[in-house]
């Protein structure tokens, strides 16, 4: 997996909300970064390099904003790298940061991902004009709804599965004080009765648009050993990409996602993901992507992911809790959403997830995807050194 082991010794997140009007861009990032440094019991001076990720720069209207943020992130005089791999970027950014440690180039790396979506209108920013895209869809939901329809037809899933996922994730979010959406009154019927946006996706089955940042401090093995709090050890990590469209591409269960997961499991020594993984933080921006990814990531045989949802296997008390943090459905600063999945996986195996902790979690996966279901990033972390 690399010459040097990687430990997550610090995790920091902001409070997520629709508008963080109380902070500037640097203020938002520093909130997450300082929380991560405090968790790691390190200071800015201990950091060797900074790796920043975010989704399209148009969201905030700042071109290559890491240049402006260099001062705020304590990166002056240090290497500063900016990653952008569409929606998977939060995960990819963590993996690039990890590679700096794995290669033995740096000992302590701060990695941070963010989005301040209140600066613009993300849905229309994701609606590309002619000639970049056919003028058929509005927002990511419009793009993905046909893929979900195809999944429902293929798997013969009952039409209420998406409602169950949305209900679960929003209820999990009530246990996560940082989550954007806290909807204590949510019920199956309130989700079902919410506005149909992109059939079969209802308003309550759709991710919010959030402001927020997430940061992690990654260290080498010595750093992990020296940490006073339990570290999360990286067991494996992978990225995969494939083209947006060509005849024969399976957009419901993309080969890139399957390959990415298989690569991570191979590195981590995970033979049976359903058995060996204790908790998963999966990128589910629209409810139906939970059962779809359960199949794509090898947790359920093809066509049966929805049964995991129906049986409650992905609930907090199920055999594979998925998104105990509330997931992307409850907090979605797009560029950070992938890193939040990676960081929440780390918190679980560190035993530091608070009220949404899964008892005894020893192996967790974090997952992100982006573009037209074509960019994938995933890692597995464990409580024990590999």
């Amino acid at each position, binding site marked *: 997996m690399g010459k040097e082991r990687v430990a997550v010794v610090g995790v920091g997140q902001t409070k997520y909300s629709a508008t963080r009007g109380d902070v500037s861009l640097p203020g938002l990032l520093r909130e997450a970064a300082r929380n991560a440094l405090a968790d790691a019991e390190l200071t800015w001076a201990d950091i060797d390099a900074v790796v920043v990720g975010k989704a399209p720069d148009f969201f905030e209207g*700042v*071109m*290559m904003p890491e240049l402006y943020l260099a001062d705020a992130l304590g990166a002056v005089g240090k290497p500063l790298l*900016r*990653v952008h791999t569409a929606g998977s970027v939060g995960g990819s950014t963590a993996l690039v940061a990890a*590679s700096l440690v794995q290669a033995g180039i740096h000992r302590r790396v701060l990695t941070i991902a963010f989005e301040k979506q209140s600066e613009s209108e993300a849905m229309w920013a994701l609606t590309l004009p002619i000639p970049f895209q056919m003028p058929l869809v509005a927002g990511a939901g419009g793009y993905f709804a046909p893929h979900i329809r195809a999944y429902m037809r293929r798997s013969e899933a009952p039409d209420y599965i998406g409602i169950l996922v949305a209900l679960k994730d929003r209820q999990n979010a009530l246990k996560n004080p940082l989550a954007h959406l806290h909807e204590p009154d949510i019920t199956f019927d309130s989700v079902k009765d919410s506005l149909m946006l992109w059939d079969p996706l209802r308003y309550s089955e759709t991710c919010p648009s959030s402001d927020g940042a997430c940061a992690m401090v990654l260290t080498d093995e010595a750093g992990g050993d020296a940490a006073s709090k339990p570290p999360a050890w990286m067991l494996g990590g992978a990225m995969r990409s494939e083209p*947006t469209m060509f005849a024969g591409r399976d957009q419901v269960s993309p080969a890139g996602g399957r390959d990415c997961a298989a690569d991570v499991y191979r590195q981590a020594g995970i033979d049976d993901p359903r058995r060996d993984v204790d908790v998963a933080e999966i990128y589910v921006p629209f409810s139906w992507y939970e059962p779809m990814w359960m199949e794509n990531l090898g947790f359920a045989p093809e066509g049966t992911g929805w049964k995991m949802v129906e049986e409650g296997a992905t609930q907090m008390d199920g055999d594979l809790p998925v998104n105990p943090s509330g997931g992307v459905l409850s907090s979605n600063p797009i560029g950070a959403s992938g890193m939040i999945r990676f960081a929440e996986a780390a918190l679980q195996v560190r035993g530091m997830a608070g009220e949404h902790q899964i008892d005894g979690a020893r192996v967790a996966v974090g997952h992100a995807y982006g573009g037209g279901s074509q960019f994938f990033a995933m890692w597995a972390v464990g409580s024990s050194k590999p």
Partner: protein
Amino acid sequence: MPHIGSREVAVVAFAQSDHVRRLEHQNEVELVMPVLHGVKSTLGITQEDIDFTCSGSTDYLAGAAFSFVQALDGVGAWPPITESHVEADGAWALYEAWVKIQTGQADTALVYSYGKSSPGSLRDVLSRQLDPYHQAPLWPDSIALAALQARACLDAGVTTVEEMAAVAVRSRRSAATNPHALLRVSEEADVLLKEPELAAPLRRHDCPPITDGAAAIVLAAGDRARELAERPAWIDAIDHRTDAHSMGVRDLTVSGSTRLAGEKAGVGRAPVDVAELHAPFTHQEVLLRRALGLGEGVDVNPSGGALAANPMMAAGLVRIGEAAARIMAGGAQRAVAHATSGPCLQQNLVCVLTGSTGGGA
């Protein structure tokens, strides 16, 4: 020295487009495809022989979010590939690829980058790179900011307008032997200095041409590099550093991050034959030479540099490619390549390339 990296990694192939003022009838995919096929066919390999792919570009040139996604169509990413992208010059994509090889997870890497600056008003587009609260609302454009830096350099005695003109003349005449360059001739310096100022103290000749273009490089480790190339250009060291963003808190007459990256990369440890410096403005070449401690004997920008062709997001990667090409051709033994990003040389990358492994000294 851990930052140098312990695996031997070399540039084994480099290709670039013809850099032009305005590429009107090709989109980004059509721009990168010949370059990507160029590096692969040179080596007789296909995408399946590449372990890791990394690109550099920016949405602000394309005018569309996720513009790099379409460019992936030029790669042939099927079956799915291990791939990443930096929102930066391709030189930083090359850095990420070099790191990936250092981890031992890849033995070969394809790096590419591209930029079409012509569709918009580049100097205004680049102003969107500035502090969004205090600077960007004033729309100070990239030439105006470079002019402020040039003025500071003149006032500090770092350079003179005559020296700046000489840099312009030498760069564009050097480009006469570079068929990919855009500006390949120059008037004499005394003629240039009679021209009016564009943004005082910069004249037109002090500024880079607005350019559309692309470049690609293949990296390979150890014996794989020796198999693929007769004379690989070994990356002896590579490092990058950033300065503060705000022009009010840094000394514009020096490039601290270039000096630091050059020290980390060990530029001064042995003589340098060739340097390819990413200096879009004439005074910046003078600054960079100083920061890297390059003396009179160093052949600077034999390709013509960014003053002869400046494809945004590719010009830094082109510098590494040009430096590597001199080594691969046998004309140089030790070369320095430099890339820059951000206003007034904010962020800088330095790569030392040699004709033999083990330091190249």
